[in-house]
């Protein structure tokens, strides 16, 4: 199962999938925690605390899945600073799934502009490879008009194969 390397890409494709199949698509957030590296019995309490800090062993997998078409879009991270942004994305997608007026009205035009901005913000905030994100998002935006309906599921699957 492919993972997206950018959460913005995940959000973009998830919103397309949600637009195509709003009633069946679900989004799961999976937070795993495994014990930190084994600590020697002789370790002092201070050492144990330090080990706990260093050996953070949690990760977060966020999946958009549509059982009807079998499309599954995933994103994985182990960075704490991303949690807030991801939950915000969940909120955006939930608003669309709920069919709220404001989200629905601007879905086609402004939604995509927003996505571009989000990608730029994310890239700048992280201080890394925003140059790589932008072409991908721009290319995806061009495809949006064709991907309006349920056919989007098929298109996405094909794209997934290339990744």
């Amino acid at each position, binding site marked *: 199962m492919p993972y997206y390397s950018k959460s913005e890409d995940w959000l973009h494709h998830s919103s397309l999938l949600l637009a*195509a199949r*709003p*009633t*069946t*698509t*679900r*989004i*799961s*957030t*999976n*937070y*795993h*925690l*495994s*014990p*930190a590296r084994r600590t020697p019995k002789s370790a002092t309490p201070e050492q144990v605390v330090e080990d706990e800090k260093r050996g*953070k*062993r*949690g*990760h*977060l997998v966020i999946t958009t899945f549509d059982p*009807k078409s079998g499309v599954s879009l995933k994103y994985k*991270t*182990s*960075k*704490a*600073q991303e*949690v*807030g942004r991801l*939950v*915000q994305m*969940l*909120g955006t*997608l*939930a*608003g669309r*799934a*709920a*069919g*709220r007026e404001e989200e*629905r009205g601007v879905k086609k035009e402004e939604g995509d502009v927003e996505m571009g901005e989000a990608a730029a913000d994310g890239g700048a905030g992280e201080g890394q490879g925003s140059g790589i994100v932008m072409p991908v998002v721009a290319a995806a935006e061009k495809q949006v008009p064709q991907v*309006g*309906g*349920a*056919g989007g599921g098929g298109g996405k699957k094909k794209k997934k194969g290339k990744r």
Partner: protein
Amino acid sequence: MSKHLSQDEFFTALTALFTTQKQSQKGTILLTQKRYSYDESAKETLSEQEHEETLTTTPLPQAPILIRASNSKSKEARNEGKKVKLSTIIQPDDLDSFYARYADVCKAGMSGLKPRDRTKRKAKEKARRKMKTQA
């Protein structure tokens, strides 16, 4: 299936779920969200083409969002009563306030993730300062 909780009860229970996981240092917490379209089962039987048509012609009716949380325990744990399953239903108008709190609870609960790594930047600054003092 257990009854749906209110927002407050849900957050209290979710925080407790995160706390137990933190204490045991391991485990998985599964959160799911989907459109709550319980009585829309008739729609699902539409053919592919019909589905597409209804989607493009009629706007999506408003529906609440169903949020589920679980500690994803196995069947044995379920028999021992260790399996926890929570769910709540959020009306479209309450989504913003819910997600604001949701973000806070998740940020606090997912403490096993790596904090922002500042060591590299610090090392760089140190090197820069050294260069300055030398020059």
